[in-house]
């Protein structure tokens, strides 16, 4: 009996939702487990780093890494796994584009640590302690991974072969990816394993978008009672759908929430935020500077809105001046 | 060769004596017959026109009428007029009498009071014109005995010979005298001031202005390494030559440059005796010596 292909899962800076999504395969997970040999999956099985180190190079066929790279440990592990794997699949928005964690690229490490350990209203830390990289006491030496200044998407650290987009990726896409791996029928390296058409294509609200839209004000979902079937943009809410890859089966818009862009841009765009900004602003109704200003101030946080899942992967990556 | 009538004008009988002497000698040498105009009178010069224009034109016209009458053989009289001022006044009178009928009418009226009748047939000629265009520079060149090779000459035409009525040379850059110098074997210096005013009678009346104008001409000629200046006008010759001491004294210059009539220089080249050319009348006397290398003459102030 031929040896089953070895597969691994690894978790970097992420919420853990991606790990959950693997379980969302439901009974299909059995099929996967049947077909592959999971050799490394810290969230579900007990492995040590030394086990991985011991594996021969390229012995794993594919590793699915979710999460952005924030700490030295994540970086270290990513490199190690890269060495041991034939294919690396960036799994989910964080690995794909930096994800929500990369919104932290608007701040420096110092700003973040200062806030989290000292300034946050819920924190009581009179001794003003901070995590230390190393503590030596009684002959024991304890080390912690370093918290990097910059959050990175996976391919900014190691070479990535495929991307499975989404926050989290849908079980359907995961299944398709695994099947493709198993069949050996693989697309070109670098492919995002989702349809290359924007979300509107599959959005049930598509029909309700008028052709002559002109925005006079933008509203956030909590400010309005959203109509359950009308295009969000037509309701004056920012929906990233037109600039976001489809393939998610429009789960958000079906759930009465506008798309926030977790699948990232299509292959034809290099910066998702710039693209949606361009598209939405172009259709603002104002014809003079003052009115333009008035309409556009109703978008209070353009970076947070347009780069929610992809600041690390955007053209600018990180706020200038947040280096130190 | 035809006969030329000769109108000396007042200057050639006094300050410009050398001009007359040398011109007549040269014409004699060239076998050209010259006969003085009988009982000629002053042309009026520039001063007369400032007082009374009709009188000024009448004065000039009288000479033209006399010329017409003196030349009995029916040939058109050609009036040799060496003085630039006379030349200008006579040509101008002719020109205005033919151009403006009212001028002619009034001058005729004045002439008739002296029983004179103006026909307008007289041709006013400058000796420079005659030598260059009637005799020809080729002939002149052939008759040179002492080649002036190497002699740097600044040709000074003055203002009134080519401006505004003469037609034998360019108004702005006359060349006749320069070509003549070449024909004599000398070298004409490129000198942009050749028609710039020498200040005329201002040297006498307002020397402060006159001498300055004069000085500019001399300084520039010296600067361009001219060994002598030749002129074709008695007043120009007088101005350029006789005030050199004064200019040197007033402006701290050191100018000693011979200023000769072009006819004097021709005479020298033709080998005529200096006495016949009025060389002895010059204030700044050129001294000549043969230059063996060049076979020509050298001049020293």
């Amino acid at each position, binding site marked *: 009996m031929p040896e089953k292909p070895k597969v691994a899962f690894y978790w970097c800076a992420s919420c853990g939702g991606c790990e959950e999504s693997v379980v969302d395969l439901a009974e299909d997970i059995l099929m996967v487990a049947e077909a592959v040999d999971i050799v490394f999956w810290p969230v579900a099985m007990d492995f040590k*780093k*030394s086990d991985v*180190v011991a594996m021969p190079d390229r012995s794993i066929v594919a590793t699915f890494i979710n999460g952005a790279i924030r700490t*030295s440990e994540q*970086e*270290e592990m990513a*490199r*190690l796994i890269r*060495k041991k794997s034939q294919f690396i699949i960036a799994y989910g928005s964080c690995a794909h584009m930096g994800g929500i964690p990369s919104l932290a690229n*608007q701040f420096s490490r110092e700003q973040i640590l200062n806030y989290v350990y000292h300034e946050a209203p819920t924190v009581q830390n009179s001794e003003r302690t901070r995590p230390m*990289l*190393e503590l030596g006491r009684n002959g024991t*030496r304890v*080390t*912690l*991974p*370093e918290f*990097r*200044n*910059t959050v990175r998407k996976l391919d*900014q*650290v190691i070479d990535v072969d495929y991307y499975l987009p989404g926050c989290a990726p849908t079980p359907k896409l995961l299944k398709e990816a695994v099947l493709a791996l198993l069949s050996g029928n693989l697309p070109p390296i670098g492919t995002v394993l989702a349809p290359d058409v924007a979300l509107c294509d599959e959005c049930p609200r598509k029909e309700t978008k008028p052709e002559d839209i002109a925005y006079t004000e933008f509203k956030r979902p909590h400010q309005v009672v959203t109509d359950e079937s009308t295009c969000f943009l037509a309701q004056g809410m920012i929906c990233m759908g037109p600039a976001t890859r489809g393939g998610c089966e429009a789960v958000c818009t079906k759930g009465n929430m506008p798309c926030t862009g977790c699948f990232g841009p299509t292959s034809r*765009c*290099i*910066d998702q*935020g*710039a*693209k949606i*900004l*361009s598209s939405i*602003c*172009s259709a*603002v109704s*104002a*014809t*003079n*500077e003052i009115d*333009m*200003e008035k309409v*556009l101030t109703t*978008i209070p*946080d*353009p*970076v947070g809105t*347009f780069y929610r899942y992809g600041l690390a992967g*955007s*053209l*600018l*990556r*990180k*706020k*200038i*001046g*947040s*280096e130190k | 060769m035809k006969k030329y009538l000769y109108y000396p004008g007042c200057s050639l009988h006094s300050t410009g004596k050398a001009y007359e002497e040398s011109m007549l000698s040269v014409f004699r040498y060239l076998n050209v017959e010259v006969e003085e105009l009988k009982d000629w009178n002053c042309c009026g010069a520039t001063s007369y026109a400032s007082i009374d224009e009709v009188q000024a034109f009448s004065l000039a016209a009288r000479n033209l009428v006399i010329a017409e009458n003196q030349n009995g053989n029916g040939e058109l009289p050609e009036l040799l007029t060496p003085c630039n001022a006379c030349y200008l006044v006579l040509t101008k009178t002719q020109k205005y009498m033919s151009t403006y009928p009212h001028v002619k009418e009034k001058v005729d009226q004045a002439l008739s009071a002296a029983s004179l009748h103006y026909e307008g047939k007289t041709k006013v000629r400058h000796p420079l014109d005659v030598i260059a265009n009637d005799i020809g520079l080729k002939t002149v060149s052939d008759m040179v005995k002492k080649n002036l090779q190497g002699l740097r000459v600044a040709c000074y035409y003055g203002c009134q010979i080519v401006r505004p009525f003469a037609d034998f040379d360019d108004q702005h850059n006359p060349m006749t005298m320069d070509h003549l110098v070449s024909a004599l074997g000398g070298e004409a210096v490129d000198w942009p001031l050749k028609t710039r005013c020498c200040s005329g009678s201002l040297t006498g009346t307002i020397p402060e202005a006159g001498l300055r104008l004069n000085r500019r001409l001399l300084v520039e000629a010296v600067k361009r390494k001219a060994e002598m200046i030749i002129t074709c006008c008695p007043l120009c010759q007088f101005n350029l030559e006789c005030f050199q001491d004064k200019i040197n004294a007033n402006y701290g210059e050191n100018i000693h440059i011979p200023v000769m009539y072009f006819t004097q220089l021709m005479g020298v080249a033709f080998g005529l005796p200096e006495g016949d050319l009025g060389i002895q009348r010059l204030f700044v006397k050129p001294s000549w010596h043969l230059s063996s290398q060049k076979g020509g003459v050298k001049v020293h102030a």
Partner: protein
Amino acid sequence: MSDNKKETKNWEPTIVAFFCNWCTYTAADLAGVSRLRHAANVRIIRVMCSGRVDPQFILNAYAKGADGVLIGGCHFGDCHYMEGNYKTARRFHLLKRMLQDMGIEEERCRLEWISASEGERVRTVINDMVEKVKALGPLRLPERFNEWDKEMEFIGEHNIGEEVHIHA
């Protein structure tokens, strides 16, 4: 970056300009014909309309090393395509705010309406912008990216499982 640009002392900013074919590019031509000397820091890219300027182009210019981006279009009401410039202006409004949020000073991104006849204005705008960007100093994103990534160099594969370097 060429060598002289690396030293801040002799640093000259690089500004990428997008000029619309009908107004500002023509005005730049006019500035040329009129021999209006100006700073040599601006590199002009011709587009048919300022409306063609995709915000991606602007971000990409910064990401590839531009210190500033200048967009030139027709005055309101003068657009050869009737209203392309309005779209440019609207995008520009929000983009500029977003750039500030990302730490890019507003002087580094400039939108100017310059009609075909305003050759002189091309010169003034370019000289003014160069001066302002010079005052800000280099943006040099590609170098910053490299600098940011230097923190990763401290981890090499050799020290996996060994010890962690401590930095101050």
